[in-house]
């Protein structure tokens, strides 16, 4: 099962490698990982997507909580939450017709063209993992030059803070 973990931790050098090191040392998988400071500059939030059965996820949560730099760990799947990922993709259009097709597909996925250079479009799309995958699929007929994805970030719905 896919789980999205939201990890609040000290914004200190070394904290990230403690988390990443824990995953590699104990053989847990990381599908994506995103980290940045929060509104409190002494804290950063790391959103990590992993896979595992309930027992493995429970161990991962406990091991994360054991790290001294970690303030709080939340499995977002346990709560109503919003999850988003940012995708940037560079696509080369072969002719005028494919230019149209690219912008049309981009519109359907609420993407935005953020750069054009000769016939190369750079498009920004946000959404859940499925949507971004579907978008990339729809673009397969064109020459996709490069993809950069942020990995998921998420937050609980409602007024409670995690």
């Amino acid at each position, binding site marked *: 099962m896919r789980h999205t973990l939201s990890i609040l*931790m*000290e914004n200190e050098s*070394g904290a990230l*490698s*403690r988390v990443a*090191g*824990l995953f590699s*040392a104990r053989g847990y998988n990381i599908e994506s990982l995103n980290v940045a400071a929060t509104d409190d500059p002494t804290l950063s939030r790391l959103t990590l997507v992993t896979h595992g059965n309930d*027992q493995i996820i*429970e*161990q991962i949560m*406990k*091991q994360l*909580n*054991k790290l*001294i*730099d*970690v*303030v709080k760990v939340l499995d977002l799947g346990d709560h109503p939450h919003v999850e988003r990922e940012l995708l940037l993709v560079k696509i080369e259009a072969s002719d005028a017709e494919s230019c149209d097709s690219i912008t049309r597909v981009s519109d359907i996925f609420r993407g935005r063209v953020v750069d054009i250079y000769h016939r190369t479009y750079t498009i920004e799309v946000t959404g859940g993992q499925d949507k971004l995958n579907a978008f990339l699929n729809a673009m397969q007929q064109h020459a996709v030059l490069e993809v950069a994805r942020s990995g998921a970030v998420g937050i609980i719905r409602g007024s409670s803070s995690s």
Partner: protein
Amino acid sequence: MKLSGAEIFVECLKAEKVDTIFGYPGGAVLFLYDELYKAEDAISHILVRHEQGAIHAAEGYAKSTHKPGVAIVTSGPGATNAVTGIADAYMDSVPLVVFTGQVNRDLIGNDAFQEVDIVGITRPCVKHNFLVTRVEDLAETIKKAFYLATTGRPGPVLVDIPKDLTKDKTEFSYPETVSMRTYNPTVKGHPRQIKNAVDLILAARQPIVYSGGGVILSGASSELKTFAQELGFPVTNTLMGLGAYPATDKQFVGMLGMHGTYEANMAMHKADLILAIGARFDDRVTGDVEKFCPHAKVVHIDIDPASISKNVSVDVPIVGEVKNVLPELLKEIQRRGEKPDQQALADWWKQIAEWQAEDCLKYTQDGDEIKAQYVVEKFWEISEGDAFVTSDVGQHQMWAAQYYKFDKPNRWINSGGLGTMGFGLPAAVGVQLAHPDATVGCITGDGSIQMCIQELATCQQYQLPLKIINLNNGYLGMVRQWQEFFYQKRYAMSYMDALPDFVKLAEAYGHVGMRIEKPGDVEGALKEALAMKDRLVFMDFITKKEGNVFPMIPAGAGQNEMILV
């Protein structure tokens, strides 16, 4: 008044009441050593002969007291030499604070002379570590280091201090308390889980207490004794837990696990309730987890939530300090005024007695070869079961665990989790320094003793009267045993050719050496050695070459599939 980083370092140690520090100097820690030199009345620095020895000595000091062990080493090779010891302390949850020197701050990351990223290297084998980057942070960091090392599940904490910082100056004040928003170990058991555990205890018909090193770390031996005796349940200890429950008590069924007793393993296998107390279901205990304790409900008391349901799924988890939880359990049992089925318990003991009748540790000292078991048993008798015993890793370690009956906690000092050959001698250094008048034995093997043999010089410098019992079988015996059983006797590299003359070696270091070759001389030699109160005696017992440790659960087998002889 402003103090230098080095002065602050020493003031912090004093504030933490550190009386002994184990270490080895070098360029990056020269300012620190200069201040230690001036403070030698308050803090005695023990000069080891290898940094691995410093850490093991600090471990011996910590394991035999209830205080943290403290060590200091220089940057680069000094720090990397300490890594084995740090990993050892991590696996056995030993409270240590290790100070490493680091190159000047402006050189960090430049591949400077004797620079290593020791914080990076040790990250997976410490409870926590710090690189101090400002002298203003030094005192608070040291305070945190001691706090983290000694609270919750104890463990090693490393503090890396750049050299230039130790001469920078700042105002010094040692924080009285420390609180960390990210760290707050649970010490009291959850009331609902206590109730759930008591439900299971009262319903049990074939219960067993399985207690481990956590009981000793928690200082909860007397609580364990009261608890077990109140209920009349059988008790087994892990290798790390030996001494947590008195070995000569009638409720004790021996150590469990790969080389545990038949009765302990069978009782675990057939039990309907396992009370795991400060133990962590290590693979050397469980054997094949699929076959482990098929009939039992499991209650697990541990300070570390991550130890619970890690290897074996648990019915009632109780996160908390063993010392608090056991009395809480007893109180709840007394409140209910009930007892487990006494007839069932009596039948259970009858069944256990049948397993005990197998007498799985029986051996006979016949013939003219000395049996290692005999040496350990005689040492136990002659030291009146009251020695501190350190050990190395191998067959001799298992024989020490099986035949020295520890009645007190903190007496059995060995490397359980990491299984570090070379642990025994330096650990004994730490134990003897903490207990100057006690008998400290080091039960070792011809392979292991050579891994930190240089510490014999430390023993000479500080006049430490250790009693070294070298069970010399001319083999890396435990390796050879596995090769005999599982590799058709192909003894690849397990034969110790070219052993040194240990008697001459001991003498070269200024100690007393003895070689004992006949069974009839064992007792006399031990008595003579123990009577030499102020000398280190190295007893080289030439033992049976191809002896094996029994009983044994082969790898991958279940607890009920022991090989008896």
